[in-house]
């Protein structure tokens, strides 16, 4: 039988096939389908327009209003109400609002809703995050979501895979965010267009689940269909106490075929910064000098997890944010919020002069809770630095890991964590 990658194996299994080959068009069963307050209203409207009455499985359609919540205006509140009414009508098991809601791609793994071996689609481009658990997951639009809500299935083109091998040990202050930024800097924002990115090697095997999620989360920023990390003992330790369904570990065959293999030595990788206005404009942090900043955002589906807040707290302990710099910390879920509070991070953040936001996507997409004026500049642990992404078209966003973001908040300019600690 043809050797297969982990991605090909998961797709074959869900299509009821023994073997798939890149380029094959398949119809596959979907385990989890996700929508949010921006994308789900269109899906719900399409669902109703063609006369559908019932979702294919009320446990598998997940609605998470996280983008403009807590509702920023009347229109946003109206969008969320569409989700709420639909969730109640369809008796959806997983609908989250108020004190239960978190940033979707942090919330679903944390609650054990997505598990290894799943095929997940979400009407949100960062749905690729769940590859960190060894699932095939990909972002789609609202109409695709509507199709899955009705039928539980969707068509896919089996992607080619690119393998990224990371050898050696990560340097201090380097995390999964830096590895993925480095890749995007090398291959560009369409360097993995339509393809699956598979991350492997010794450095990945010892990477935390949080860092793995940050990596897979940004696969879309290289144009990829999905990102995936073969599950292992670290995955098992994370999912076994959370999984709400049985899960399965898949792995790539030794002789599986890749369109390309790229190797990295982690000794060469220092913290990365993606300069405006594309995630591919990456530089070593030490090369970005004298860039004054007005705002720092630590949060999002990329870097709003406990490990991210922990490293920020480590750097900010006993320090003050530079005068007139606004530091906004956004724990990604209620659990992360509560845990960060218990561990004393909030005291550190508040003493440093930070604002602590409830879980929301908020400023990452220029929604609310931290918008930039013309000429303002931010360092953010988020995933996109497009023109106008966080506010005015004349504002700028620099992407970095939480350690660089925290250090930059203290210095008032983009800084290496070693300059502060």
């Amino acid at each position, binding site marked *: 039988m043809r050797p297969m990658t982990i991605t090909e194996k998961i797709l074959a299994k869900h299509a009821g096939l023994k073997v798939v080959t890149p380029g094959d068009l398949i119809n596959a069963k979907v385990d989890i389908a996700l929508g949010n307050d921006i994308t789900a209203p269109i899906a719900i409207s399409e669902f109703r327009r063609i006369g559908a009455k019932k979702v294919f499985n009320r446990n598998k359609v997940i609605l998470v209003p996280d983008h*403009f919540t807590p509702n*920023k205006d009347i*229109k946003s509140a109206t969008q969320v109400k569409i989700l709420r009414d639909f969730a109640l009508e369809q008796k959806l098991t997983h609908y989250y609002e108020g004190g239960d809601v978190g940033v979707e791609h942090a919330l679903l793994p944390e609650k054990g809703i997505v598990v290894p071996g799943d095929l997940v689609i979400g009407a949100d481009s960062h749905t690729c995050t769940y590859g960190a658990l060894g699932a095939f997951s990909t972002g789609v639009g609202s109409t695709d979501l509507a199709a899955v809500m009705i039928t539980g299935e969707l068509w896919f083109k089996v992607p080619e895979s690119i393998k990224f091998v990371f050898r050696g040990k990560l340097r201090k202050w380097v995390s999964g965010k830096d590895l993925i930024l480095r890749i995007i800097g090398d291959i560009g924002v369409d360097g993995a267009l339509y393809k699956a990115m598979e991350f492997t090697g010794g450095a990945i095997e010892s990477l935390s689940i949080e860092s793995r999620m940050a990596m897979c989360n940004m696969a879309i920023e290289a*144009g990829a269909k999905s990102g995936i990390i073969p599950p292992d003992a670290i995955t098992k330790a994370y999912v076994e106490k959370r999984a709400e369904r049985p899960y399965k570990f898949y792995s790539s065959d030794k002789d599986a075929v890749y369109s390309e293999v790229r190797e990295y030595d982690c000794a060469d990788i220092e913290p990365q910064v993606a300069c405006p206005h594309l995630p591919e404009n990456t530089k070593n942090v030490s090369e970005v000098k004298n860039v004054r900043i007005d705002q720092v955002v630590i949060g999002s589906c990329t870097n709003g997890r406990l490990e991210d807040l922990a490293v920020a707290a480590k750097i900010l302990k006993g320090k003050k944010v530079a005068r007139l710099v606004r530091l906004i910390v956004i724990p990604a879920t209620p659990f992360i919020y509560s845990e960060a509070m218990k561990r004393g991070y909030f005291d550190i953040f508040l003493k440093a002069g930070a604002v602590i936001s409830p879980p929301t996507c908020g400023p990452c997409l220029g929604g609310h809770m931290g918008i930039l004026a013309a000429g303002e500049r931010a360092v953010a642990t988020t995933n996109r630095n497009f023109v106008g992404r966080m506010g005015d078209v004349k504002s700028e966003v620099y992407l970095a890991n939480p350690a660089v973001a925290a250090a930059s908040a203290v210095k008032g300019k983009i800084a290496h964590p070693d300059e502060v600690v």
Partner: protein
Amino acid sequence: MKFTGNVWKYGADIDTDRIIPARYLNTSDPLELAKHCMEDEDPAFASRVQQGDIIVAEKNFGCGSSREHAPIAIKAAGISCVIARSFARIFYRNSFNMGLPILESDEAVDTASRGDVLEVDMDSGKIHNVTKGLRFKARPVPPFMQELIKAGGLMESIRKRGGI
């Protein structure tokens, strides 16, 4: 499907935030979205675009978010089709699903200038730059996608398959 319209020319990696900024995503009303289409890239676009006009762009058009509001805004603004060197994956899917005609052609992108008149035949993939007197053929649309278009989009194809 045949279209004739004037070219709006854009560069590489036009992301969905530039096609429709997130600050307007608190609605999914197509006409409301159309008012802000391309606003952060080309503030004049929404007020000057004519019914039937054609967007021509470099590589990776529609990269970034999965918002279907992007092709919805373009279509509601009056654009008849988008020609690019390549499209980002989710934008590509969304366009077929919701019925925005799109084509890939390097030659058409290389030669088109803002304001050129193009004639596009979606069925044959033929592109005629009337202003410059040049003719090209776009990369063929995969048969599966053609079926989707013929069925009237993804939702209609589900209805026809008896998916409901």
